[in-house]
């Protein structure tokens, strides 16, 4: 059989954005080509989603594998299960939205869209890879386009932001690389591999032991990429300076790579190590939720506030991961999806706002809902989705995380000597902090809404155009997807849960 034909359809999905990038560089209409390419990807993912249940609905489908470095057990293996498909849907959906809201810059427009397409190819490749080596390689593909996007087309102190983010992320990825090499080396000699499925099987057979140092490397590496407190300082500045589509793709999709990796690799393969270091992780993630939460409240500019809020929300997902049970992991995976969509919508709106007013300072804005009612409506929806109000998919995710995490660990409640002993374990304390975090995010999101859209209007803003055209359609779709999956979370749960813990 022709080796090309025996490839997985996922290869097509990775190649589409690259082809679009090539066409863009060759001089075709940049925005149109990018939009076409990303729409084709989205459509294709929808087809795969429809086909997946018919293929059995569990395990990896659309499988193909080509050995690359047999000496090290590296092969180019593609495959997707429910969780990967959800992430692929998120990636392609956010890419379409990012391209749709992108304002073609005057400086080198081809490069701009080509960079977006490269990021898209990178995230699709990462989520479609079963081989950890390529999983890692594809993620890195997005690093340089991000550097260029922030550095060339960013705003504010863009150069510092781009440097900081790039060096930080490069360092994080190399730590992660060491972690993956470590994961390779702790396997018993003779059948070492980078194939996730095979490693998981080895772990189930109890052949991977004494691997807590590997988990620590993975946690720090992924943690830097996901802006785990205290490795978060690159994120707010980078998102504040990045052009809107870059921030949407990075905060919405690329950053999820790290948590996806932890859920995919650490949870099934190194559960003992995760439990061993659960207290460290719980303290750090409470730092994410409470400390960064309060820092977010203190922000005076919308872009910085959104940057910090995206750091803060990672804390919930880490909580879902740390608790390590099916409910919490399902919740964490749903939150990956939910947060990706809501933060993408918020960054899209803040980009639109910046393009209209030239400032995102709360002190200068106000009363905009009067001139831009639809804009205000969309922002309200997106903000409520980000807080996690019922009806949005974020609510379902948060609820599952909280339920799962509260039942995590060993319960300390007991009855001794006829007295009930009321005690909380560290998971429960962290969960309570996280619930308080919801209040914090409600405070800053609603305050942002009030400062920007309510109150007295500055004369300068009286003639602003409302949200129209492509950005409006893109945001409608994003919010619609959040509402639909929010009302019927079963759609996601059915896909995600079988892919989690064995």
């Amino acid at each position, binding site marked *: 059989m022709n080796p090309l034909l025996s490839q997985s359809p996922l290869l097509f999905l990775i190649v589409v954005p690259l082809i679009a990038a090539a066409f863009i560089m060759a001089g075709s209409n940049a925005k149109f080509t990018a939009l076409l390419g990303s729409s084709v990807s989205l459509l294709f993912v929808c087809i795969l989603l429809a086909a997946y249940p018919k293929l059995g609905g569990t395990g990896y489908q659309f499988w193909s594998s080509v050995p690359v470095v047999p000496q090290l057990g590296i092969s180019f293996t593609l495959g997707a299960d429910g969780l990967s498909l959800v992430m692929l849907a998120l990636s392609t959906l956010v890419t379409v939205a990012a391209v749709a809201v992108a304002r073609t810059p005057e400086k080198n427009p081809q490069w701009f869209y080509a960079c977006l397409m490269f990021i898209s190819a990178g995230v699709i490749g990462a989520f479609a890879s079963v081989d950890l080596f390529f999983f890692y390689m594809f993620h890195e593909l997005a690093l340089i386009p991000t*550097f260029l996007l922030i550095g060339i087309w960013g705003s504010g102190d863009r150069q510092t932001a781009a*440097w900081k983010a790039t*060096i930080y992320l490069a360092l994080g990825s190399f730590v992660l690389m*060491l972690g993956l090499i470590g994961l390779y080396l702790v396997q018993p000699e003779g059948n070492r591999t980078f194939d996730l499925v095979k490693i998981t099987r080895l772990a189930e057979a109890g052949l991977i032991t004494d691997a807590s140092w590997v988990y620590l490397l993975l946690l720090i590496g992924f943690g830097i990429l996901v802006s785990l407190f205290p490795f978060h300082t690159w994120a707010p500045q980078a998102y504040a300076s990045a052009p809107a589509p870059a921030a949407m793709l990075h905060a919405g999709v690329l950053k999820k790579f790290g948590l996806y990796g932890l859920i995919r690799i650490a949870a099934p393969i190194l559960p003992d190590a995760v439990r061993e270091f659960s207290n460290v992780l719980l303290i750090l993630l409470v730092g994410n939720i409470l400390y960064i939460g309060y820092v977010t409240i203190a922000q005076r500019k919308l872009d910085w506030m959104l940057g910090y809020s995206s750091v803060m929300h990672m804390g919930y997902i880490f909580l879902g991961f740390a608790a390590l049970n099916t409910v919490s992991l399902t919740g964490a995976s749903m939150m990956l999806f939910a947060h990706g969509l809501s933060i993408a919508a918020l960054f899209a709106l803040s980009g639109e706002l910046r393009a209209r007013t030239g400032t995102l300072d709360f002190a200068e804005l106000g009363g905009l809902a009067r001139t831009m009612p639809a804009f205000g409506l969309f922002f309200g929806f997106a903000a409520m989705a980000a807080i996690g109000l019922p009806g949005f998919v974020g609510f379902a995710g948060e609820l599952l995380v909280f339920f799962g995490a509260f039942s995590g660990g060993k319960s300390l409640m007991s009855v001794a000597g006829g007295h009930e002993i009321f005690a909380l374990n560290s998971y429960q304390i962290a969960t309570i902090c996280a619930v308080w975090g919801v209040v914090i995010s409600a405070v800053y999101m609603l305050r942002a809404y009030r400062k920007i859209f309510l109150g007295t209007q500055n004369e300068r803003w009286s003639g602003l155009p409302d949200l129209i055209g492509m950005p409006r359609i893109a945001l409608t779709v994003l919010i619609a997807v959040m509402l639909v999956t929010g009302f019927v979370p079963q759609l996601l749960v059915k896909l995600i849960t079988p892919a989690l813990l064995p």
Partner: protein
Amino acid sequence: MIQPLALEICVVCLGIFLLMADSFLVKTDKSALAYGAIVGLAGVFVLSFYTLPAAPDLALSGFYVTDTLGMFFKRFALLATILTVILAIDHAPVVARFIPGSTPQAGVGEFFVLPVFTCAGLMWMASAADFIMIFCALELVTISIYIQVAYMRRSVASLEAGTKYLILGALSTGFLVYGITWIFGMTGQTGLMQIGEVLQRIPISTGLLFGIGLVLVALGFKIAAAPFQFWVPDVYQGAPTPVTAYLSVASKAAGFVVLLRVLEPLLAVPALQAKLFPVLSLLAVLTLLYGNLAAIPQTNFKRLLGYSSIAHAGYLLVGVASLGAFMAGRAIVFYLFGYLLMTFLAFLVLVPVAKASGGDEISHFNGLGRRSPGLALALLLSMLSLAGIPFTAGFLGKFFIFEAAMDQQNYVLVVIGVVTVACGFYYYLKVVRAMYWQAPPEDAPEIVVSAPSRVAIICLSALILILGVYPQAILRMFP
């Protein structure tokens, strides 16, 4: 089918023929010599795939080995020389400006021919398995490079570079000879294989360690390992650009081949292993730190590449210090080949840009993304590969090296390696920033790239990407 020895003889004959042709045949356009050299070397490259195993008497003498490693580095040397000559064609007008002569091209001819002799030396070195042979080959390389470094004799920088290289080269030669003498005194042998046999029998004496230490120092100079690296930045900056490229790739690679060959019998002795690995690790740490940290503040591109070559010597030394691992030898070879590709690619872009902009500061690359998108893309690829971004040969090289180091539990090296990789991102991306973030100068002249350079740039870029996803192309040569 030919004897492998014939390859070197062909190269030497080619050099002599070209020198003759320079005097008698080619009067006006000296670049004909360069094309002659390229075609000739390419011919030898093709011939190298049709060699017999070495004749038994030659193989038994222990002087000359034609194993996979040797043949690989013969081809490596040929490739590097071809690329150097291509660079020299573009760079010749700059060189000619600094050479007094009756006609504009007087004295340029040898500039194209000398690398051919160096190439012969490098090819001998790849096969040398005896200290005497190693020494002779090394000197053939070094002496012909002395001339090339100081070639622009009206340029003070070039002369300074030449003098520095001469003095420090002579010093390192002294170390090498003295070290060989001690090793010979202790073992009674100069052949590496025979030394290995003797070492299994005799106890490890101080004299032997002293000799080994001196040889390591001498090789440290050749591969530019800290603390023997101080000649590198000045020499690299002052030398004509093609020679810089040659020096930083071919001469370094040859140094590593010799290092691998010399270490092989030594590391077979457990007692020496325990002494050598810490020394090699220390060298690796110093080289990594020095090369990467000193590169950060550089503003001159050639000098930056000089420091980057020290940094890469550091990563290679990490591989050498992990030689017990299954992948270590392969990792070093792969890394060296990737290093050849990306460094020559950087130089192939540097030469035309420097010629058009009148200097090789990083600021001369400002706005290259708009002035010449193709060149900028090639340099972007080269910088990403040097920094170690996935899907390039440079990343896989680093990956294999780190894998080997972790396999040998050299965790200190790994940690320092990762920190220095982050430094590397900073200084390589500085060039990317100049190309894409900064605006081009108003009066930026057009950049002309000659046809051979263009072909070379495309081939190297393609190879970097191909090896970045299909490393087996190199690895499968070393089963």
